[in-house]
Protein backbone atom coordinates (compact mmCIF):
# COMPACT_ATOMS: atom_id res chain seq x y z
CA UNK A 1 0.00 0.00 0.00
CA UNK A 2 1.91 3.00 -1.30
CA UNK A 3 -0.01 5.61 0.69
CA UNK A 4 0.82 3.94 3.96
CA UNK A 5 4.48 3.79 2.98
CA UNK A 6 4.40 7.44 1.84
CA UNK A 7 2.82 8.52 5.11
CA UNK A 8 5.38 6.53 7.09
CA UNK A 9 8.40 7.95 5.23
CA UNK A 10 7.23 11.56 5.62
CA UNK A 11 6.23 10.91 9.22
CA UNK A 12 9.86 9.89 9.91
CA UNK A 13 11.07 13.03 8.09
CA UNK A 14 8.81 15.20 10.23
CA UNK A 15 10.00 13.47 13.36
CA UNK A 16 13.73 13.76 12.75
CA UNK A 17 14.13 16.98 10.76
CA UNK A 18 14.76 19.69 13.34
CA UNK A 19 15.02 23.34 12.26
CA UNK A 20 12.55 24.01 9.51
CA UNK A 21 11.90 23.31 5.84
CA UNK A 22 15.40 22.95 4.45
CA UNK A 23 16.26 20.49 7.22
CA UNK A 24 13.96 18.01 5.46
CA UNK A 25 16.21 17.96 2.38
CA UNK A 26 18.60 15.17 3.40
CA UNK A 27 15.59 13.00 4.21
CA UNK A 28 14.01 13.69 0.83
CA UNK A 29 17.27 12.72 -0.94
CA UNK A 30 17.24 9.51 1.07
CA UNK A 31 13.62 8.76 0.09
CA UNK A 32 14.46 9.45 -3.56
CA UNK A 33 17.41 7.04 -3.26
CA UNK A 34 15.53 4.19 -1.68
CA UNK A 35 12.18 4.33 -3.43
CA UNK A 36 12.73 6.25 -6.66
CA UNK A 37 9.38 8.01 -6.21
CA UNK A 38 11.02 11.14 -7.60
CA UNK A 39 14.47 11.82 -9.04
CA UNK A 40 17.23 14.02 -7.71
CA UNK A 41 16.80 16.50 -10.56
CA UNK A 42 13.10 16.71 -9.73
CA UNK A 43 14.19 17.49 -6.18
CA UNK A 44 16.27 20.42 -7.44
CA UNK A 45 13.19 21.78 -9.25
CA UNK A 46 11.17 21.24 -6.09
CA UNK A 47 13.52 23.38 -4.03
CA UNK A 48 13.40 26.22 -6.55
CA UNK A 49 9.61 26.10 -6.78
CA UNK A 50 9.10 25.66 -3.03
CA UNK A 51 11.15 28.74 -2.33
CA UNK A 52 9.33 30.87 -4.85
CA UNK A 53 5.73 29.97 -4.04
CA UNK A 54 3.78 30.99 -0.95
CA UNK A 55 3.79 28.76 2.09
CA UNK A 56 6.27 26.99 4.33
CA UNK A 57 9.14 25.51 2.31
CA UNK A 58 8.93 22.10 4.01
CA UNK A 59 5.20 21.83 3.30
CA UNK A 60 5.70 22.84 -0.32
CA UNK A 61 8.41 20.18 -0.67
CA UNK A 62 6.35 17.37 0.83
CA UNK A 63 3.32 18.34 -1.27
CA UNK A 64 5.42 18.34 -4.42
CA UNK A 65 7.13 15.05 -3.57
CA UNK A 66 3.84 13.36 -2.68
CA UNK A 67 2.25 14.63 -5.89
CA UNK A 68 5.08 13.25 -8.01
CA UNK A 69 4.81 9.90 -6.22
CA UNK A 70 1.13 9.41 -7.04
CA UNK A 71 -1.21 12.40 -7.41
CA UNK A 72 -3.15 14.87 -5.25
CA UNK A 73 -3.90 12.12 -2.73
CA UNK A 74 -0.17 11.46 -2.45
CA UNK A 75 0.42 15.18 -1.89
CA UNK A 76 -2.09 15.25 0.97
CA UNK A 77 -0.83 11.99 2.52
CA UNK A 78 2.84 13.05 2.41
CA UNK A 79 2.09 16.45 3.92
CA UNK A 80 -0.10 15.04 6.67
CA UNK A 81 2.65 12.51 7.40
CA UNK A 82 5.20 15.30 7.66
CA UNK A 83 3.18 17.44 10.07
CA UNK A 84 1.70 14.73 12.31
CA UNK A 85 4.76 14.25 14.58
CA UNK A 86 5.27 17.96 15.19
CA UNK A 87 1.57 18.62 15.80
CA UNK A 88 1.52 15.90 18.46
CA UNK A 89 4.79 17.05 20.03
CA UNK A 90 3.79 20.72 20.09
CA UNK A 91 0.39 19.92 21.64
CA UNK A 92 2.12 17.88 24.35
CA UNK A 93 4.60 20.70 25.04
CA UNK A 94 1.73 23.22 25.13
CA UNK A 95 -0.08 21.14 27.72
CA UNK A 96 2.97 20.97 29.95
CA UNK A 97 3.63 24.69 29.46
CA UNK A 98 0.10 25.75 30.33
CA UNK A 99 0.35 23.75 33.54
CA UNK A 100 3.62 25.37 34.59
CA UNK A 101 3.28 28.81 33.03
CA UNK A 102 3.06 30.52 36.40
CA UNK A 103 6.02 28.65 37.81
CA UNK A 104 8.79 31.15 38.50
CA UNK A 105 11.50 28.79 37.27
CA UNK A 106 9.72 28.28 33.94
CA UNK A 107 9.32 32.03 33.60
CA UNK A 108 13.02 32.44 34.32
CA UNK A 109 13.90 30.03 31.51
CA UNK A 110 11.70 31.95 29.08
CA UNK A 111 13.22 35.23 30.20
CA UNK A 112 16.48 33.89 28.80
CA UNK A 113 14.88 32.25 25.76
CA UNK A 114 13.23 35.38 24.39
CA UNK A 115 16.37 37.40 23.65
CA UNK A 116 17.92 34.29 22.07
CA UNK A 117 14.80 33.75 19.98
CA UNK A 118 14.90 37.41 18.91
CA UNK A 119 18.58 37.03 17.97
CA UNK A 120 17.95 33.87 15.92
CA UNK A 121 15.21 35.59 13.93
CA UNK A 122 17.36 38.72 13.49
CA UNK A 123 20.22 36.55 12.31
CA UNK A 124 17.99 34.80 9.74
CA UNK A 125 16.84 38.18 8.42
CA UNK A 126 20.37 39.61 8.33
CA UNK A 127 21.83 36.61 6.50
CA UNK A 128 19.13 36.79 3.83
CA UNK A 129 19.86 40.50 3.59
CA UNK A 130 23.60 40.12 3.15
CA UNK A 131 23.11 37.38 0.55
CA UNK A 132 20.79 39.67 -1.35
CA UNK A 133 22.72 42.93 -1.08
CA UNK A 134 26.12 41.45 -1.85
CA UNK A 135 26.00 39.80 -5.24
CA UNK A 136 28.99 37.99 -6.66
CA UNK A 137 30.21 39.69 -9.83
CA UNK A 138 30.65 36.78 -12.26
CA UNK A 139 33.28 38.54 -14.39
CA UNK A 140 35.49 40.07 -11.76
CA UNK A 141 34.73 37.48 -9.06
CA UNK A 142 34.29 40.10 -6.39
CA UNK A 143 31.35 40.83 -4.16
CA UNK A 144 29.59 43.99 -5.13
CA UNK A 145 26.67 45.82 -3.61
CA UNK A 146 23.34 45.52 -5.39
CA UNK A 147 22.34 49.19 -5.25
CA UNK A 148 18.83 48.60 -6.59
CA UNK A 149 18.08 46.10 -3.78
CA UNK A 150 19.60 48.44 -1.22
CA UNK A 151 17.47 51.36 -2.43
CA UNK A 152 14.31 49.23 -2.32
CA UNK A 153 15.19 47.93 1.16
CA UNK A 154 15.74 51.44 2.51
CA UNK A 155 12.57 52.70 0.81
CA UNK A 156 10.46 49.88 2.27
CA UNK A 157 11.89 50.39 5.72
CA UNK A 158 11.03 54.10 5.63
CA UNK A 159 7.47 53.25 4.52
CA UNK A 160 7.15 50.83 7.45
CA UNK A 161 8.18 53.58 9.85
CA UNK A 162 6.38 56.52 8.22
CA UNK A 163 3.31 57.73 10.10
CA UNK A 164 0.85 57.44 7.21
CA UNK A 165 2.00 54.09 5.81
CA UNK A 166 3.20 52.21 8.84
CA UNK A 167 -0.19 50.65 9.48
CA UNK A 168 -0.36 49.03 6.06
CA UNK A 169 -0.53 45.25 6.12
CA UNK A 170 2.77 43.41 5.41
CA UNK A 171 1.14 41.97 2.27
CA UNK A 172 0.96 45.49 0.83
CA UNK A 173 4.72 45.93 1.24
CA UNK A 174 5.32 42.52 -0.37
CA UNK A 175 3.15 43.54 -3.36
CA UNK A 176 4.88 46.90 -3.70
CA UNK A 177 8.25 45.15 -3.71
CA UNK A 178 7.08 42.62 -6.33
CA UNK A 179 5.84 45.47 -8.52
CA UNK A 180 9.09 47.37 -8.23
CA UNK A 181 11.00 44.17 -8.97
CA UNK A 182 9.11 43.74 -12.24
CA UNK A 183 9.21 47.44 -13.13
CA UNK A 184 12.98 47.71 -12.75
CA UNK A 185 13.82 44.19 -13.94
CA UNK A 186 15.49 43.36 -10.64
CA UNK A 187 17.61 40.27 -10.14
CA UNK A 188 19.05 40.11 -13.64
Amino acid at each position, binding site marked *: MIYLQLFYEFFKT*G*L*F*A*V*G*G*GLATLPFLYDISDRFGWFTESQLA*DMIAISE*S*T*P*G*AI*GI*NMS*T*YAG*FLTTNVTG*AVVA*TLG*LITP*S*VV*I*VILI*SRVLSRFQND*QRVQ*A*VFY*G*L*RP*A*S*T*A*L*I*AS*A*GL*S*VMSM*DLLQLDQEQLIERVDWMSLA*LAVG*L*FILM*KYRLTKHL*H*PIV*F*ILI*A*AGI*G*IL*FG*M*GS
Partner: protein
Amino acid sequence: MNKYLQLFLTFAKIGSVTFGGGYAMLPILERDVVERHGWVTREELLDYYAIGQTTPGIIAVNTATFIGYKHLGVIGAISATLGIILPSLIIISIIASLLVNITDSEMLQHAFAGIRVSVYVLIIHAVIKLSKSSLKDWFTISLFAIVLLLTLLVNMTPVVFVVGAGVCGYLLYVFKKRGESS
Protein backbone atom coordinates in the same frame (compact mmCIF):
# COMPACT_ATOMS: atom_id res chain seq x y z
CA MET B 1 -18.31 33.28 12.35
CA ASN B 2 -17.38 29.96 13.88
CA LYS B 3 -14.22 30.58 15.89
CA TYR B 4 -12.44 27.49 14.55
CA LEU B 5 -13.27 28.53 11.01
CA GLN B 6 -11.90 32.00 11.72
CA LEU B 7 -8.67 30.49 13.05
CA PHE B 8 -8.44 28.19 10.02
CA LEU B 9 -9.07 31.02 7.54
CA THR B 10 -6.62 33.37 9.25
CA PHE B 11 -3.86 30.78 8.95
CA ALA B 12 -4.87 29.89 5.39
CA LYS B 13 -4.45 33.57 4.54
CA ILE B 14 -1.06 33.66 6.26
CA GLY B 15 0.02 30.51 4.42
CA SER B 16 -0.92 31.99 1.08
CA VAL B 17 1.01 35.24 1.46
CA THR B 18 4.16 33.97 3.17
CA PHE B 19 7.13 33.71 0.85
CA GLY B 20 10.15 31.92 2.27
CA GLY B 21 8.93 29.80 5.16
CA GLY B 22 8.81 30.07 8.91
CA TYR B 23 10.78 33.25 9.52
CA ALA B 24 9.06 35.10 6.68
CA MET B 25 5.76 34.30 8.38
CA LEU B 26 6.71 36.27 11.49
CA PRO B 27 5.80 39.82 10.33
CA ILE B 28 2.34 38.66 9.22
CA LEU B 29 1.79 36.69 12.43
CA GLU B 30 2.82 39.73 14.42
CA ARG B 31 0.29 41.86 12.57
CA ASP B 32 -2.68 39.47 12.30
CA VAL B 33 -2.39 37.16 15.29
CA VAL B 34 -0.84 39.50 17.89
CA GLU B 35 -2.03 43.00 16.94
CA ARG B 36 -5.31 42.35 15.16
CA HIS B 37 -6.81 39.33 16.94
CA GLY B 38 -4.79 39.33 20.16
CA TRP B 39 -4.75 35.53 20.26
CA VAL B 40 -1.22 35.47 21.68
CA THR B 41 1.18 38.08 23.05
CA ARG B 42 4.53 39.14 21.52
CA GLU B 43 6.30 37.29 24.32
CA GLU B 44 4.41 34.09 23.56
CA LEU B 45 5.19 34.41 19.85
CA LEU B 46 8.91 34.61 20.69
CA ASP B 47 8.58 31.61 23.00
CA TYR B 48 6.94 29.58 20.23
CA TYR B 49 9.67 30.47 17.77
CA ALA B 50 12.32 29.47 20.30
CA ILE B 51 10.68 26.11 21.00
CA GLY B 52 9.63 25.61 17.37
CA GLN B 53 13.28 25.67 16.28
CA THR B 54 14.38 23.09 18.79
CA THR B 55 11.59 20.57 18.32
CA PRO B 56 11.12 18.33 15.28
CA GLY B 57 9.21 19.56 12.26
CA ILE B 58 8.73 22.67 10.20
CA ILE B 59 8.95 25.96 12.13
CA ALA B 60 5.84 27.38 10.41
CA VAL B 61 3.77 24.35 11.39
CA ASN B 62 5.09 24.27 14.95
CA THR B 63 4.27 27.95 15.41
CA ALA B 64 0.76 27.55 13.93
CA THR B 65 0.08 24.57 16.21
CA PHE B 66 1.27 26.51 19.28
CA ILE B 67 -0.90 29.54 18.49
CA GLY B 68 -3.95 27.42 17.66
CA TYR B 69 -3.59 25.46 20.90
CA LYS B 70 -3.11 28.58 22.99
CA HIS B 71 -6.22 30.17 21.48
CA LEU B 72 -8.63 27.21 21.24
CA GLY B 73 -7.05 24.00 22.53
CA VAL B 74 -6.40 20.82 20.57
CA ILE B 75 -9.03 21.45 17.89
CA GLY B 76 -7.68 24.98 17.55
CA ALA B 77 -4.17 23.59 17.07
CA ILE B 78 -5.41 21.31 14.30
CA SER B 79 -7.49 24.07 12.65
CA ALA B 80 -4.55 26.49 12.53
CA THR B 81 -2.19 23.83 11.22
CA LEU B 82 -4.55 22.65 8.48
CA GLY B 83 -5.04 26.31 7.57
CA ILE B 84 -1.33 26.97 7.17
CA ILE B 85 -0.81 23.92 4.90
CA LEU B 86 -3.90 24.28 2.69
CA PRO B 87 -2.56 27.01 0.34
CA SER B 88 0.64 24.99 -0.24
CA LEU B 89 -1.36 21.87 -1.06
CA ILE B 90 -3.47 23.72 -3.61
CA ILE B 91 -0.77 25.87 -5.21
CA ILE B 92 1.90 23.17 -5.41
CA SER B 93 -0.52 20.54 -6.71
CA ILE B 94 -1.57 22.88 -9.51
CA ILE B 95 2.04 23.69 -10.40
CA ALA B 96 3.09 20.05 -10.26
CA SER B 97 0.17 18.92 -12.41
CA LEU B 98 0.78 21.60 -15.05
CA LEU B 99 4.35 20.35 -15.36
CA VAL B 100 5.57 23.89 -15.86
CA ASN B 101 8.57 25.29 -14.13
CA ILE B 102 7.35 28.68 -13.01
CA THR B 103 10.88 29.62 -12.03
CA ASP B 104 11.64 29.88 -15.77
CA SER B 105 9.40 32.93 -16.10
CA GLU B 106 11.47 36.08 -16.32
CA MET B 107 8.73 38.30 -14.94
CA LEU B 108 8.33 36.07 -11.89
CA GLN B 109 12.07 36.15 -11.32
CA HIS B 110 11.98 39.95 -11.26
CA ALA B 111 8.99 39.90 -8.94
CA PHE B 112 10.77 37.52 -6.58
CA ALA B 113 13.92 39.62 -6.58
CA GLY B 114 11.70 42.40 -5.22
CA ILE B 115 9.78 40.13 -2.84
CA ARG B 116 13.05 38.82 -1.37
CA VAL B 117 13.95 42.37 -0.37
CA SER B 118 10.55 42.94 1.26
CA VAL B 119 10.86 39.65 3.17
CA TYR B 120 14.06 40.55 5.00
CA VAL B 121 13.05 44.16 5.56
CA LEU B 122 9.78 42.92 7.09
CA ILE B 123 11.62 40.39 9.25
CA ILE B 124 14.09 42.99 10.52
CA HIS B 125 11.24 45.44 11.14
CA ALA B 126 9.32 42.78 13.08
CA VAL B 127 12.45 41.94 15.09
CA ILE B 128 12.76 45.58 16.13
CA LYS B 129 9.17 45.51 17.37
CA LEU B 130 9.62 42.18 19.16
CA SER B 131 12.85 43.31 20.79
CA LYS B 132 10.84 45.79 22.84
CA SER B 133 9.26 42.90 24.68
CA SER B 134 12.34 40.71 24.91
CA LEU B 135 15.27 43.10 25.50
CA LYS B 136 14.58 44.73 28.81
CA ASP B 137 17.83 44.92 30.78
CA TRP B 138 21.57 44.36 30.52
CA PHE B 139 21.10 40.61 30.91
CA THR B 140 18.68 40.17 27.99
CA ILE B 141 20.53 42.68 25.78
CA SER B 142 23.85 40.89 26.27
CA LEU B 143 22.25 37.49 25.64
CA PHE B 144 20.79 38.89 22.42
CA ALA B 145 24.15 40.31 21.33
CA ILE B 146 26.06 37.12 22.12
CA VAL B 147 23.60 34.84 20.30
CA LEU B 148 23.39 37.18 17.31
CA LEU B 149 27.18 37.36 16.98
CA LEU B 150 27.63 33.61 17.36
CA THR B 151 24.92 32.75 14.82
CA LEU B 152 26.43 35.13 12.28
CA LEU B 153 29.98 33.89 12.84
CA VAL B 154 29.69 30.15 13.40
CA ASN B 155 27.42 27.60 11.83
CA MET B 156 25.70 25.86 14.73
CA THR B 157 22.26 24.41 15.29
CA PRO B 158 19.79 26.82 16.94
CA VAL B 159 19.15 24.12 19.57
CA VAL B 160 22.46 25.01 21.25
CA PHE B 161 21.53 28.68 21.57
CA VAL B 162 17.98 28.10 22.73
CA VAL B 163 19.00 25.57 25.39
CA GLY B 164 21.99 27.70 26.45
CA ALA B 165 19.87 30.85 26.79
CA GLY B 166 17.23 28.98 28.77
CA VAL B 167 19.91 27.73 31.16
CA CYS B 168 21.28 31.29 31.51
CA GLY B 169 17.79 32.55 32.38
CA TYR B 170 17.42 29.87 35.01
CA LEU B 171 20.87 30.52 36.50
CA LEU B 172 20.12 34.24 36.75
CA TYR B 173 16.95 33.37 38.68
CA VAL B 174 18.83 31.06 41.06
CA PHE B 175 21.50 33.71 41.54
CA LYS B 176 18.93 36.39 42.33
CA LYS B 177 17.09 34.10 44.76
CA ARG B 178 20.31 33.49 46.64
CA GLY B 179 20.99 37.20 46.74
CA GLU B 180 17.56 37.78 48.27
CA SER B 181 17.79 35.08 50.91
CA SER B 182 21.28 35.96 52.14
